[in-house]
């Protein structure tokens, strides 16, 4: 199966996943009680005003027809305008404003998590059973168990209000100032990275320990290479495959799972946008965020698959 056919299959699969995901989210949103008209027309909404609003935004049409209209628009590249959280603003503009923030914090967090977990996971595996391993493993357990809002506030109290090294609230968009984004984004990135680093470290440790006992490792050592050389090129290199896979799986967390952290630090991200839109029944925004999330997750998974097959020494040249 050539590369082209494989890519075509994967692409078709991705498109199908996005379609199914959008249909499901659309139907679930419509099934939930609540009315966007009330959100925007307020308490004194007269029945005629509500009816006029629903008609103007095609909310009184049959659900399947509304869905078809949305798909038709999306395929043209028109994601519509916000109904109730940014009245009338084109949704592509909203996403363009907020996606860079989410991606910046996400990538920043992944880099921090990778650096920390490489160190902790390797030390834990190399010094298995000894004090260093216990310390490293405990840190990992702590990282997974800390509630994200608690950790966020602890970071704010310690490093922002306490030491004053970082702002206690607010995020400078990377499009405005890259250095400002790094400065104001460090604490949120650390809060996002903590549980990820814990998971990565545990995965790496387990993979390293598992591979260390394999027969090919023993064979490599029997060639007389130094232990560190064997470790890097035989053990570590192969442990990267499950490690990179886990990194890819966590991408959905940095997109939508960090809403609480975004709220606490004031990072205007896509996750918060989707949550606010959900509460305000802003259907077009929720759908647009769904598409963005699905596409990014699928692309990252594809990239992970490519990386893993590149890392695998068994693949044919």
């Amino acid at each position, binding site marked *: 199966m050539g590369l082209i056919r494989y890519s075509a299959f994967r692409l078709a699969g991705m498109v199908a996943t996005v379609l199914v995901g959008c249909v499901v989210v659309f139907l679930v949103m419509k099934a939930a009680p609540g009315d966007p008209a009330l959100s925007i027309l307020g308490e004194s909404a007269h029945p005629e005003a509500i009816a006029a609003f629903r008609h103007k935004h095609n909310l009184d049409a049959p659900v399947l027809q509304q869905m078809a209209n949305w798909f038709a628009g999306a395929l043209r590249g028109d994601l519509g305008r916000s109904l109730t959280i940014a009245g009338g603003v084109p949704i592509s503009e909203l996403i363009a404003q907020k996606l860079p923030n989410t991606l910046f914090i996400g990538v920043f967090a992944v880099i921090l998590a990778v650096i920390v977990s490489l160190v902790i996971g390797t030390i834990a595996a190399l010094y298995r059973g000894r004090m260093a391993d216990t310390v490293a493993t405990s840190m990992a357990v702590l990282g997974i168990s800390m509630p994200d809002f608690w950790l966020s506030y602890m970071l704010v109290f310690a490093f922002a209000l306490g030491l004053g090294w970082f*702002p206690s609230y607010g995020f400078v968009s990377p499009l405005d100032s890259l250095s400002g984004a790094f400065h104001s984004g460090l604490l949120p990135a650390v809060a996002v990275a903590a549980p990820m680093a814990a998971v990565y470290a545990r995965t790496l440790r387990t993979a390293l320990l598992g591979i260390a006992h394999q027969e090919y490792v023993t064979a490599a050592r029997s060639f007389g290479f130094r232990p560190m050389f064997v470790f890097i090129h035989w053990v570590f290199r192969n442990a990267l495959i499950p490690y990179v896979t886990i990194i890819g799986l966590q991408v959905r967390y940095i997109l939508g799972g960090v809403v609480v952290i975004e709220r606490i630090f004031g990072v205007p991200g896509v996750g918060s946008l989707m949550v606010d839109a959900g509460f305000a029944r802003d259907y077009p925004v929720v759908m647009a965020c769904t598409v963005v999330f699905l596409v990014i997750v699928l692309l990252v998974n594809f990239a992970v698959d490519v990386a893993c097959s590149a890392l695998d020494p068994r693949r044919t040249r």
Partner: protein
Amino acid sequence: MTDRSRNKFTRRAILKSATALGAMGLVPPWLAGRAYAAGETLRAGITGYNVINTFDPGRATLIPEFYVIWAIFNGLMKFDAKMNVVPDLAESFKVADNGTLEVRLRPGVKFQDGSALTADDVKFTIERISDEKFASPNRSKVQAIDRIDIVDPLTVRLATKEPFAPLLTFLANARTGTQILPRAALKAMGDDAFGKKPIGTGAWSVKDWRPGERVTLAAFDGYFGGKPKLAQVDVPLIAEESSGVTALLGGQIDLTSTAPFADVPDLMKKPELVVLKQAGLNCRFVQLNHRKPPFDDPVFRRAVSMAFDREAIVKAVLFGEGVPSAGLIPPSIEYAYGGNKRPLCTYDPAKAKAELARSKYPNGAEGVVLTWAQSWWKRSGEVFVGMVNQTLGTRLVLEVTDANTVFSRLKAGDFQASIWGWLGFIDADEYTYDIVHTKGWRNFAGYSNPKLDALLEQGRREINRDKRGAVYKAAENMMIEDMPILPLFCSNVHNLMTKKVHGFAQLPYSNYGDQFAGMTIG
């Protein structure tokens, strides 16, 4: 082994240059790029909300929208520190015996595009929100106005079919939607564009707006009240109230629009902060549905009202930041406030049980009380349901959903009871007519008492304030006998600011943007 020294693009070289570039990026722009750095700018955070859809007073419905609108526009009237109605864009006004209001406008007032304010703009503004086709959510404020006459370019006469006492308050720069708009500019821009880049007579114009994130206001030097002392106001929209507190403590903002109740006692002890608080203009109550059991029986309703302790809710849920209520009209509307010591709203288990025995549902009545998960709405519901069940042996259940769903169900009549309330209304009429008059559009209960209706209509017609107050006190006494809703409490409004902020006067309707023009920092 390759000869690494010949290859210019060694890993080391790349790493070195990348680090150098990165370090360059971290120097001076770093300081400028700091999130919300301090300076000639007031950073006034709106806390607890983050949705603004429009800056058009004719379309605004949400609290944060009005917070900013009050900085961009003026009304014909405004409130002074004692909640008296005083002229704003008006220079003077006269109310005739038949209720007709004649307003003389201040000469020389300019809109932010340089055009002059005239009586025609007043006429345009009111006609626009009266228009059924425009479907303004604030239409009810001007529905009583029958005719608008332009006497001369600076004088306008508003006539009502019969005297309408709330008219003056409905024309104030509060949560009314009657802020004066420029006819020419609006027609040129169109409604949608005007909602994003509004033009008003106020001291501030919208320089930048990032939905869900912040609004940036720039000073209007030609403001009729005098050029503002500050050049710019940043208004970050901070969804989490507690994040607003940390932002203030960390020096990222100078002022907040609310404070979390639980933190107020501790914040008041901090010497570097100023905490403003007073009883707010709001009413919180349990909305009941009279079309379904068990709250279709007034005797049962009275029993439930005496079966729980409002004082306990204020202490436990609001941390003391509120006042128990025995009616709908809040204490800050002094002339009409009837006090909170009515026996039917006082906790008395013995009387409650006696009343229950006389009701249609003496044994273990079931009911679902709706609420939503935000801060004290849910906690109030928990304490209310818990105490009533304990006192009366009823089987009430709290159902936690979200605000949008609750509102939809109230409008549809698909509920038995719900924690509910209203914030920011400024006239006794809004707190009573709309909620308990047969035709009141906030009358989700389906309650109808023709004698009460007559009293409330009389309250609308009575221009003399003291006489009007007496009417509303009598109306509330009458209403409480039927107990159409269960009063809970009136909560405090709060503002937090650093000691460097001067010139902010807190008013009970939770004002904000109207204060920016007179404020300084330092």
